[in-house]
């Protein structure tokens, strides 16, 4: 039995969602654009799904455009924002965005755009003063994430949006990690464009949506047919859209049951807090990265000093526990996570950081199992490590040479 604590990477498809989508992979294969009832009934299902997603976001159905994934949503949003105000050549984003934002920005810098990357503090938080100083009348786009995928730290998006609005910039929010986990209401929001991805909220992979505020002068990124009111060409991925609709409906119901009562009365948050507190209590020399901030209820990122993240993951894997790490070795690149690096965390913690991300399917048994095996794993790896105190000098003596500018 797998203990899946990597829900910020992807989630299991909710069995009800799967049941709902299956008929659209078999019986109801018509094209929703067709002029016959067989296709028309599929079109009706798309409209229902659109209403379900709109409902989750507090949006109108015409504001929802289905697409293929979060990366497409982010690329489309940036493209649309720049096309809306072509005379402005400045973008404001943060240093801790997903690559689907950062790499687009880097590409645009080569094309002559100027990009400001806002910094974060040691707990992963933005400084609103810095935001205010960065955004000017020449800023075409402000794009920030709603919540960070690695630490779960939530950004004050409405306050950032208010500053963006004052300067006439388009405001895009990458809400891939937030949608379905915390309540979002775009009705009176400053957000113009918002990205979400299905597989982060128990729908399948390969489906996403972009929220486009009514009245925003949107130019489409993928040209072709008139699907999605001409805003995203391509025959709709019907079964997955139906699935995303159902997943949104279930997430909405789930959030409502939590909202009515005390915010602490959230089983996901309670299990996360249990995991976090017990780890801190039983394992010495570890710290919560981004701890003590406004965070997603499902995410915790813990740095274990003096050991390396990939090794911890492989040890956990032996117990069928799935988590992820921001260490260099687990990423496939030589650099550790850009998010933890931007937070200025010491290398002793950086390389040994593990993210546990829960879902509504996580049980207390899962958490107890982690708490049972983790102390032994950390102890075993620390026994192997030549490094066991912040005072040992030799390992720290060769620090990174600053990059020549």
């Amino acid at each position, binding site marked *: 039995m797998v203990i899946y604590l990597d829900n910020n990477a992807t989630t299991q498809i909710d069995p009800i969602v799967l049941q709902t989508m299956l008929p659209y992979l078999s019986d109801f294969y018509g094209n929703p654009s067709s002029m016959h009832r067989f296709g028309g009934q599929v079109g009706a299902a798309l409209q229902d799904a659109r209403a379900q997603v709109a409902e989750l976001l507090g949006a109108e159905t015409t504001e929802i455009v289905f697409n293929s994934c979060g990366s497409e949503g982010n690329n489309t949003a940036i493209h649309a924002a720049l096309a809306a105000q072509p005379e402005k050549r400045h973008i404001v984003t943060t240093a801790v965005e997903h690559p689907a934002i950062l790499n687009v920005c880097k590409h645009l810098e080569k094309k002559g755009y100027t990009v400001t990357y806002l910094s974060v503090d040691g707990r992963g938080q933005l400084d609103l003063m810095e935001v205010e100083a960065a955004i000017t009348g020449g800023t075409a786009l402000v794009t920030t994430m709603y919540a960070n995928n690695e630490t779960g730290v939530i950004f004050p998006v409405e306050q950032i949006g208010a500053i963006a609005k004052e300067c006439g910039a388009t405001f895009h929010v990458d809400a891939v990690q937030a949608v379905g986990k915390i309540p979002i209401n775009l009705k009176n929001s400053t957000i113009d464009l918002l990205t979400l991805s299905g597989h982060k909220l128990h729908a399948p992979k390969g489906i996403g949506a972009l929220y486009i505020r009514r009245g925003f002068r949107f130019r489409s990124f993928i040209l072709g047919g008139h699907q999605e009111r001409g805003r995203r060409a391509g025959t709709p991925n019907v079964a997955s859209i139906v699935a995303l609709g159902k997943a949104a409906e279930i997430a909405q119901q789930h959030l409502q049951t939590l909202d009515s009562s005390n915010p602490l009365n959230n089983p996901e948050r309670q299990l996360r807090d249990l995991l976090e507190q017990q780890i801190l209590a039983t394992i010495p020399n570890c710290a919560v990265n981004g701890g003590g901030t406004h965070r997603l209820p499902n995410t915790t990122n813990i740095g274990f000093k003096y050991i*390396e993240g990939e090794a911890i993951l492989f040890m956990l894997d032996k117990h069928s526990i799935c988590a992820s790490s921001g260490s260099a070795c687990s990423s496939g690149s030589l650099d550790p996570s850009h998010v933890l690096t931007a937070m200025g965390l010491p290398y002793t913690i950086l390389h040994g950081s593990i993210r546990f991300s829960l879902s509504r399917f996580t049980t207390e048994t899962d958490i107890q199992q982690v708490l049972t095996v983790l102390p032994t794993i950390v102890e075993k790896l620390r026994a192997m490590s030549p490094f066991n105190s912040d005072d040992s000098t030799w390992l720290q003596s060769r620090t990174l040479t600053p990059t020549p500018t």
Partner: protein
Amino acid sequence: MWDYSEKVLDLFYNPVNQGAIADPNEPDVAVVFGEVGSIACGDALRLHLKIQQSTEIIQDARFQTFGCTSAIASSSALTEIIKQKTLDEALHITNKDIADYLGGLPEAKMHCSVMGQEALEAAIYKYRGIEVEQHDDDDGTLICACYGISEPRIRRVIIENDLTTVEQVTNYVKAGGGCGSCLAGIEDLLIEVQQERVALSQRVTAEVAATPLSPIQKINLIQQVLTEEVRPILLADGGDIELYDVSGDVVKVSLKGACGGCESSTVTLKNSIETKLRSRVSPTLTVVEA
């Protein structure tokens, strides 16, 4: 997920020889350790050796590693490889030997095996009283400032592992994996090493040419010249040539196709083939038709 071999996973989950070695303070026994890496780089290894001084045999080896799955497995593998070897034998161990012992490593993880080889070298140099820093920076400019990688280290992995691309160098020693400003420098080194290799093989050819050929070498060289230099020209004219026999300095060939019935075939033989063979193989050769 990394595609690790069974051996890597086995040595990671069940590492052998981990820990330090206490100095027993016995006569004829020395205990030293070598260190490479740093917490900043994301991996570090401290390798402990117990050496019998009279024979220079490594009696015991232990490791302490901060690093990923393959770093730990590489360290453990290294200790197994070097036990009971003499220091001179151990110095001949390359990172490739470590990787081979593990049944291979993913290319992006080859630097773990390099770390093992470097720690071994560091420990032995320390025992012998050679300053590792000096060795490292001998004629060594620092190529990669981010990871502190000098030219000799990059040269060594290029040569020992037959590397041909900058990406491979980054995978093996991390150089170029940081800010990327040294990528062109690494490329220059690759070209340099390749040119040195070409020069070396030309020198070997020249030396071989200076010594008299044995009959077999002579026949092989005749065959090679005919195949590579003569035959293409004849083929272009619709003819062909085959080596029939070599007896002393007489080379018998059979001519086919257009050449065989051609009146000028004798001239062709005499003029081109003989000249070619005389200049390339031996000035005393004559060519006849079989």
